């Protein structure tokens, strides 16, 4: 999993975890959710190359709710950006309207550190506080 941090000791930086679709495909639903929430609990921004299925999103919300704690963790911010026609889904699949890959770039972060999270048709913009 490629990661980036702007601070070598990690104490004052913001870590970004870019998780490939290939890596996620190897995991069961709860393993995916655990990986995301563990990262978010650590204050990281997690970017999923291919996102989650609707059912996994539902379970992510449910698990997030179970872990919210007034002493620290107050949930997640999440934005998704569906892949357009330039995605690598098959031409036939798109023509037949059955491209069910649902692949969508997804950005997830801790709600208490993400000050704004904006999305329009071509841009996801995130401002992350360090504290």
């Amino acid at each position: 999993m490629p990661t980036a941090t702007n601070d070598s000791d990690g104490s004052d930086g913001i870590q970004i975890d870019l998780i490939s679709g290939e890596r996620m495909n190897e995991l069961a639903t709860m393993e995916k959710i655990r990986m995301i929430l563990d990262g978010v609990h650590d204050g990281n921004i997690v970017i999923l190359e291919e996102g989650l299925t609707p059912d996994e999103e539902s379970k992510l919300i449910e698990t997030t709710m179970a872990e919210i704690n007034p002493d620290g963790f107050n949930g997640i911010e999440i934005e998704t950006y569906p892949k357009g026609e330039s995605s690598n889904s098959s031409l036939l699949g798109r023509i037949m309207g059955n491209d069910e890959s649902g692949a969508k770039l997804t950005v997830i972060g801790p709600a208490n550190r993400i000050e704004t999270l904006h999305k329009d048709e071509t841009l996801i913009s995130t401002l992350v506080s360090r504290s």
Partner: protein
Amino acid sequence: MNVNVCNVCLSEFSPVVRADTPRVLEALTMGLFTELKDSISRVTDRLFSDQEPKRIGIYGPPNAGKTTLANRIARDWTGDAIGTESHIPHETRRARRKENVQIERNGKSVTIDIVDTPGVTTKVDYEEFTDEMEEEDAIRRSREATEGVAEAMHWLREDVDGVIYVLDSAEDPITQVNTMLIGIIESRDLPVLIFANKIDLEESSVKRIEDAFPQHKTVPLSAKEGDNMDEVYDAIAAYFG
């Protein structure tokens, strides 16, 4: 069972039994009646099963007016309310069901169970409530709110037959929670109606909601003022009847 089958049955009986043909016929007739009775029973069971009220979940983000709508529907058709309404988010922190709400439209009757669910969100911060209440109460409210959201998601995955998705038409509908929830509902092939609530507010824009979710029927209304409820009930009967 037709005549040919009866003939086959008779030919297979022993000579002793064949000698007592009237009793055999009586037994066969009884068998036919039993079979017919079982068949009618199965059809009746299926009919009653089809007539069981569908559970319609009222979903949406916090403060969209879900409980106000649920109360409006319940009061209009049963005389009772479902829950307490409030301007403070997460007033509804448990899913509540109102059973057997019978809605009559155009001479037909549709019976549904209404499930009023807590507003769905991905974050709950107790400090949002501290302006309105003591810290201890705010913490308790936030804890209950998180449990309520999890409960709402569980209902959506397991226990509803259709969804009324309520949005505040004065707010931007294109949020991640709305997009995600509509996606989850669609993935489960549940019939969904979008209700653009709060049309009594000056800044209301129904078109913004229609443009955001063009794949679904949008019905404008004000649950608080009771505006456009006829169309609301027509749509409920058409979609969930």
